[in-house]
């Protein structure tokens, strides 16, 4: 029987307002094994932790139960406190009487009763706890960054600058990401390319950074400190070592009908192409679906014109297997498909465009060479309408429930730039709310209104109707005037909701990183661990975690890098001691457990055993505790109960069940 101390936290009034902590102390002190019980306003405070230290020493406690907030908050704190008192840290259990009790119940009697039961379950468990010792595992001093946009580039630069090797895997032919598609950036109106390209060049030139473009992550195994990743380098059909980036192949390529992805499909490109002029690497790829040589076998123009002999039609996908200690996900975003919003006539009219498409139109390298013109007839618009929140803040089934965060600001930017460059163009913005928290953001928006005369109308648009005269009739609300507005516009720009890049789902599954209903990666704690995934060793950078603008993305990228560096700086990691452990005498050697182990941690060995005097060689299961992650799948397949999970043993869980159902 253990000697257990129970500590009930008030958490100020967070717990004590709903749970009668004194009553809990009184009741649990009568539980078997409990030889000390007390309450304290803040157990997590230094003074609170001292309470544990003192009691362990004075009463010679062998186990501790803390009734407090979620173990996800302070389990580590209390385990450390116990360790300081000389107790094995795994002799501590937490009864979650805040998140699972005081915060969700109103009735004191009811909440107190539940708190007592939760405490009893924890006590029953601790009674069966055994000291556990954490093992150690090595750390591969190399990081992988998935995604080569501004988030990935910044993270890679920061990690590399700290002296660690970094690989960037980017699925398109060049790094640069969404930021390379932007024309100007808010709130300073810097040219996007001017501030991005130096970073791209720096990354490419960095001796610690290795960039795999036109590549994807195929497979991830292993765990924190020791991931093994298969990277698929897709066949570029161009030998990167030989190519000089002269661009002749692209000029001469006879297949020029493919939609230009970089320009959001607003114009076309050749089958052999680099996405944009500043692409890194400046090595084209052949789009095999569009290439005449690949489709018909006849052509080969690029091969003929290439002085360097770099064209290689026989190139195959290549799989590179590499080990990493840390992985940073920086997969970014895309705009949502607008097929559910045909009331805005995006599919019906070429002159209804998304904001990202407007970026390309405004950009000198874009489809209109930077001239603001209608894509239908090339005419300069006189009347422009911007519609905010298209697909954002929609709690119906059509759109996204969240605010995309960046639209208010970039729309102000677009409106301002247009009014600045084309003062004869009228700009009207239909908005629901203008959200501009951020340094110099609201000032920026007000400048658009006050100095540039952008017409902001509070109210959503209900319909955009193309007119026979080529104009667009915008039917919107002016809620402040209580009017329905009918406005003829030449162009309509939709502030389209952003969503995580589609590939993130597959990547999250490979990394076993959790993902929310909107496909944003979940952070380990929404406030306190915002750049870490709940999966150890996986960090989050940029919009893959949630909508954010460039400064926030860069800040988060740096934070993710710091977290990764913190991990890579360690030589060894302590491993989770809650691993599976077989009882050799009970093991049948049936291999069922090995069949369900996701880590290949279970092997079988013929081993001499002494079963109560009977010596014989048996086939018994062995668990490699460095590989075992402690899921427990094996324990349930084992009919004899030979395989058990330390820290979550059959008897411990049954003791909890019994305590709850008592």
């Amino acid at each position, binding site marked *: 029987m253990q000697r257990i101390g129970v500590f009930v936290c008030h958490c100020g009034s967070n717990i004590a307002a709903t749970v009668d902590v004194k009553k809990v102390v009184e009741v649990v002190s009568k539980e078997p094994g409990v030889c000390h019980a007390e309450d304290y306003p803040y157990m997590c405070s230094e003074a609170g932790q001292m309470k544990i230290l003192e009691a362990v020493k004075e009463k010679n406690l062998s186990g501790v139960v803390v009734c407090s907030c979620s173990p996800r908050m302070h389990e580590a704190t209390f385990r450390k406190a116990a360790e300081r008192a000389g107790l094995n840290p795994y002799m501590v259990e937490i009864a979650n009487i805040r998140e699972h009790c005081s915060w969700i119940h109103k009735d004191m009697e009811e909440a107190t009763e539940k708190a007592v039961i939760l405490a009893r379950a924890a006590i029953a468990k601790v009674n069966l706890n055994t000291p556990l010792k954490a093992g150690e595992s090595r750390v591969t001093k190399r990081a992988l960054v998935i995604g080569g946009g501004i988030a990935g580039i910044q993270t890679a630069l920061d990690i590399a600058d700290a002296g660690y090797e970094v690989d960037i895997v980017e699925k398109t032919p060049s790094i640069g990401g969404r930021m390379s598609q932007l024309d100007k950036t808010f709130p300073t109106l810097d040219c996007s390319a001017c501030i991005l390209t130096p970073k791209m060049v720096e990354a490419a030139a960095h001796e610690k950074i290795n960039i795999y473009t036109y590549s994807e992550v195929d497979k991830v195994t292993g765990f924190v400190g020791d991931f093994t990743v298969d990277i698929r380098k897709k066949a570029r059909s161009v030998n990167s070592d030989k190519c000089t980036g002269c661009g002749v192949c692209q000029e001469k390529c006879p297949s020029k009908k493919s939609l230009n992805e970089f320009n959001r499909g607003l114009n076309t490109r050749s089958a052999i192409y680099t996405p944009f002029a500043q692409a890194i690497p400046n090595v084209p790829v052949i789009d095999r679906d569009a290439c005449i040589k690949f489709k018909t076998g006849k052509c080969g123009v690029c091969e003929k014109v290439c002085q360097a002999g770099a064209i290689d039609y026989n190139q195959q996908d290549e799989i590179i297997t590499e080990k990493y200690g840390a992985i940073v996900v920086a997969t970014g975003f895309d705009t949502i498909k607008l097929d559910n919003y045909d009331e805005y006539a995006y599919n019906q009219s070429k002159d209804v465009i998304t904001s990202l498409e407007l970026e390309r139109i405004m950009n000198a390298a874009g489809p209109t060479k930077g001239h603001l013109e209608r894509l239908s007839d090339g005419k300069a618009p006189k009347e422009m309408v911007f519609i905010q929140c298209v697909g954002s803040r929609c709690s119906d089934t059509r759109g996204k429930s969240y605010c995309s965060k960046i639209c208010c600001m970039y729309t102000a930017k677009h409106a301002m730039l247009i009014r600045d460059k084309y003062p004869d163009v009228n700009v009207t913005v239909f908005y629901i709310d203008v959200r501009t928290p951020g340094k110099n953001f609201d000032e920026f928006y007000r400048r658009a209104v006050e100095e540039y005369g952008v017409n902001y109308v509070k109210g959503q648009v209900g319909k955009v109707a193309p007119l026979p005269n080529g104009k667009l009739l915008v039917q919107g609300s002016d809620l402040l005037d209580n009017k329905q507005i009918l406005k003829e516009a030449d162009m309509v720009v939709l502030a389209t909701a952003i969503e995580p890049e589609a590939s993130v789902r597959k990547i999250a599954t490979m990394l076993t990183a959790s993902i929310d209903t909107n496909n944003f990666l979940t952070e380990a704690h929404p406030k306190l661990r915002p750049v870490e995934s709940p999966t150890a060793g996986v960090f989050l950078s940029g919009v893959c975690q949630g909508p954010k603008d460039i400064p926030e993305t860069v800040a988060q990228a740096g934070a993710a890098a710091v977290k990764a560096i913190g991990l890579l700086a360690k030589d060894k990691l302590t491993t989770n001691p809650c691993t599976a452990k077989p009882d050799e005498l*009970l093991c049948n050697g*049936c291999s069922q457990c090995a*069949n369900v182990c996701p880590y290949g941690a279970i092997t*079988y060995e013929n081993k001499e055993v002494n079963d109560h005097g009977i010596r014989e060689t048996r086939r018994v299961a062995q668990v490699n505790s460095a590989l075992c992650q402690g899921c427990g799948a094996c324990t349930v397949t084992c*009919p*004899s109960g030979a395989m058990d999970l330390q820290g979550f043993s*059959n*008897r411990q869980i049954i003791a909890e069940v*019994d305590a709850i159902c008592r």
Partner: protein
Amino acid sequence: MQELVNRAKELLANGTVQRVLGWKAGDMAYNPEPSYFETEADLSDFVYDAFCGANLSKYMIEASKKEGKTLVFLKPCDSYSFNQLLKEHRVDREKAYIIGVGCKGKLDIETIRKQGVKGIEEISGASMDDACDTLKIKTIYGDKEVSYQSAMLERCHVCKGKDHVVYDEVIGESRDTVDGERFSEVQRIESMTPEEKFLFFQKELSKCIRCNACRNVCPACSCRKCVFDSNKFDSAQKANVDSFEEKMFHIIRAFHVAGRCTDCGECSRVCPQGIPLHLFNRKFIKDINEFYGDYTAGEDIDAEAPLTHFEFTDREPNEERG
């Protein structure tokens, strides 16, 4: 039968096997029991007839630990159990010389008794050689006749098949005995109301005396130490008032053998209280077949077992049976 004895003697004599695992005549005509035969002389007691229902595969676990090979006689259905044990590394194929024996349906003495035949002295028609459609039974109350088919064990009415799935040689022919639907009884229970289901099982399980005969005979229940006998789950508290084991024994046992049970029917055959224990196992088999595709434990040792395998598209637990 003599052919089996002759072949066994031959194999013992030429040193291929060290011992023979078969059936030995019991004190009555209808209760032969499993036995080892070490010498040619021992084999005089050997018997193989329609009452040799006992599945010898489980004995091979212990036999696998002995020196040299053991000759074992397996009926077609027994061979599934052996194969399953092989899959689970419980028996050593190298230590077994398997003679697959023909089977014409095994008889159940209780079924005969239920037909009003009491005081049995002698039964003819049950040997493998003269197996015929009618059993002639000599009783202290005079001669009786019972049809062979009507006296068969439940499992033979829904026999898995006449072919052995593992053997070194096969002696004797098997007869097609199937005349029932394997899952009809399970279906009948499934269609009951919850109340009726509960009353049915309560009535049956209340008969259990926890003699462990089912567990001891079951080739899938071959743990070195049963979970109910160890303290791993706090489930074995004999002296305690705890009733977990009492109430849950059969459900847990069925779960532990789910996906591994070959439906050999030994549990029901040996239950002294006549509880239809196979109805638990067969429910799992039926569900597995329906939910995850047909699977017969022991048929193919390389097949993925249903509970250590999954598909991304598996049905959800809360789903109603469609």
